[in-house]
């Protein structure tokens, strides 16, 4: 990885876009990357559209300006796409990953998007199935690792497991559910043929 | 009192000073009225001592009232006012300060 990879997460306040951005960066750092993760801050409360960002690089990152042209955009809540231009600043060779049961082709049609790569994964369904609740941000991490190829999958799983075990020491079922959700999303995320 | 003013290098660090240095400062010249202590009439009730704002009631080593500390006494007259002794046998009386 020569340069800096920039990522943008779209979600609604309370959905965990910030947490996902932090989790991903934390994991990337454990795997040797230089990272930045930061949310967009405003007076918004639960439910409002929010964004969070990641920067990853093999070299120290010094710049501290905002991210306007992310290579990867993740959408935690597909209903956002009706009101928020999630593709803003997305370059022609960028990637869009959407949490939805729909196919990438359907999303492309909905967005009227000419270029960029589109991927979909039903992270909410996976989350409900594996974790028991609709918290799509963890499975989306699996999809992101698959699509971006930025991190080594096995190492990423191992690292996340260690971190979750630390956080949920007395709730092993949560750790297991989350890891399975990440793995499932990794396997199931699909792009256009 | 002509005390030499300290230079800044002579000051204690941090705007601090040892406690109790005001004892060196005399406020006796504030008086226009002067309390006179009459030991023979004193019943050692300590009311004068309790109400003196200027810690100017002198006690001996046996903690008996022995007089007024004119170095500090500002002549407010509280000691006289609070002294419970009878009119004809006052332990403290006030008179005009003679300069």
């Amino acid at each position: 990885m020569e340069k800096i990879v920039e990522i943008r997460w779209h979600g609604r306040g309370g959905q965990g876009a910030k947490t996902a951005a932090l989790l991903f960066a934390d994991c990337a750092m454990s795997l040797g990357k230089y990272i930045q993760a930061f949310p967009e801050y405003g007076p918004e409360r639960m439910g409002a559209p929010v964004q969070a960002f990641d920067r990853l690089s093999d070299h120290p990152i010094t710049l501290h300006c905002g991210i306007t042209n992310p290579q990867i955009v993740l959408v935690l809540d597909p209903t956002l796409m009706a009101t928020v231009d999630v593709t803003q600043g997305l370059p022609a060779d960028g990637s869009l990953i959407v949490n939805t049961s729909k196919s990438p082709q359907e999303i492309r049609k909905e967005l009227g998007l000419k270029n960029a790569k589109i991927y979909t994964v039903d992270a909410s369904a996976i989350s409900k199935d594996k974790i028991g609740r609709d918290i799509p941000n963890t499975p989306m991490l699996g999809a992101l690792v698959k699509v971006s190829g930025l991190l080594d999958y096995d190492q990423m799983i191992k690292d996340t497991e260690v971190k979750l075990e630390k956080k949920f020491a007395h709730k092993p079922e949560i750790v297991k559910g989350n890891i399975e959700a990440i793995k499932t999303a990794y396997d199931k995320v699909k792009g256009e043929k | 009192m002509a005390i030499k003013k300290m230079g800044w290098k002579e000051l204690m660090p941090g705007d601090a000073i040892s406690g109790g240095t005001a004892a060196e400062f005399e406020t006796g010249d504030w008086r226009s009225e002067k309390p006179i202590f009459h030991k023979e009439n004193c019943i050692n009730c300590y009311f004068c001592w309790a109400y003196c704002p200027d810690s100017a009631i002198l006690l001996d080593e046996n903690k008996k009232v022995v007089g007024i500390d004119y170095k500090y006494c500002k002549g407010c007259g509280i000691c006289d006012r609070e002294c419970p002794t009878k009119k004809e046998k006052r332990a403290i009386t006030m008179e005009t300060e003679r300069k």
Partner: protein
Amino acid sequence: MPGLRDLVKKSDPLTGGHRACAGCGAPIVVRQVLMSSKDPVVVVSATGCLEVVTTIFPYSAWTVPFLHNAFENSAATCSGIEAAYQALKRTGKIKEGQHINFVAFGGDGGTYDIGFQSLSGAVERGHDMLYVCYNNEAYMNTGIQRSSATPKGASTTTAPAGKVIPGKVQFSKNLTEIMVAHEMPYVAQSAVGFWRDLTSKAEKAFSIRGPKFINVLQPCRLGWGYKPADTAAIGRLAADTCVWPLYEVENGKYKLTYKPKEKKPVVEFLKSQDRFRHLLKPGNEAILESIQKETDKRWEALLAKSEG
């Protein structure tokens, strides 16, 4: 209960040589309160008369550790010292059992008004400290401006008795009751002129852990306008007319600590001081009546609580 025979054996927390007015009540309050402590004391004072007259560099009248920070923060500053004491005790720098009493002084300006938030906060946090308000019912340090402790009708430089407005229009804020509402372990009111009352209350306060508050009426010969010799006597008159009842509230239980043999009319108190002189002129009967009425109301309410 300490008698004066015991207190005279103690070392004096204040030396002479301070620059308070002749007949000032504040040093009387300080000496009586601090000498009631069995343990060492550390003192904080708000900016105000007391601090100004006792610490004119390089002359400090304090023979106990003393810190002045600013006007409105003596309670917060004292809570910082108390926190430091707890921290040093925890880390073994101060030995267990080496008790220190922390005392914050503030005038009515530094307590009722600008320092009220700091006081309320420190009390709510439960610091082990005694806060003593030496209440002379106006901002005396800056030249007798009204405070929320100033009684109705009193003439001050920011609520002067004029042709249209006869001095302060409002009754004083009942801070003691506000402190009671903090549900703190000990709240009391005392006055200069009652040495036994004040020293007993201070001694009791020092025996209790947690926040304590004593509101001491401190006649000010300059701001109130009377002969300096009368400082203690005027404090007693305030209690005898019930404009300033002496009582304590221990864990919510009210106790009257002084009941005048004969409740004197308020006008006796008012006519003893220049600040009320204008009220005694014809035409101000209604104000006098309203002051008497309010005094009676507060007194009756206090009696009811004390008996109940």
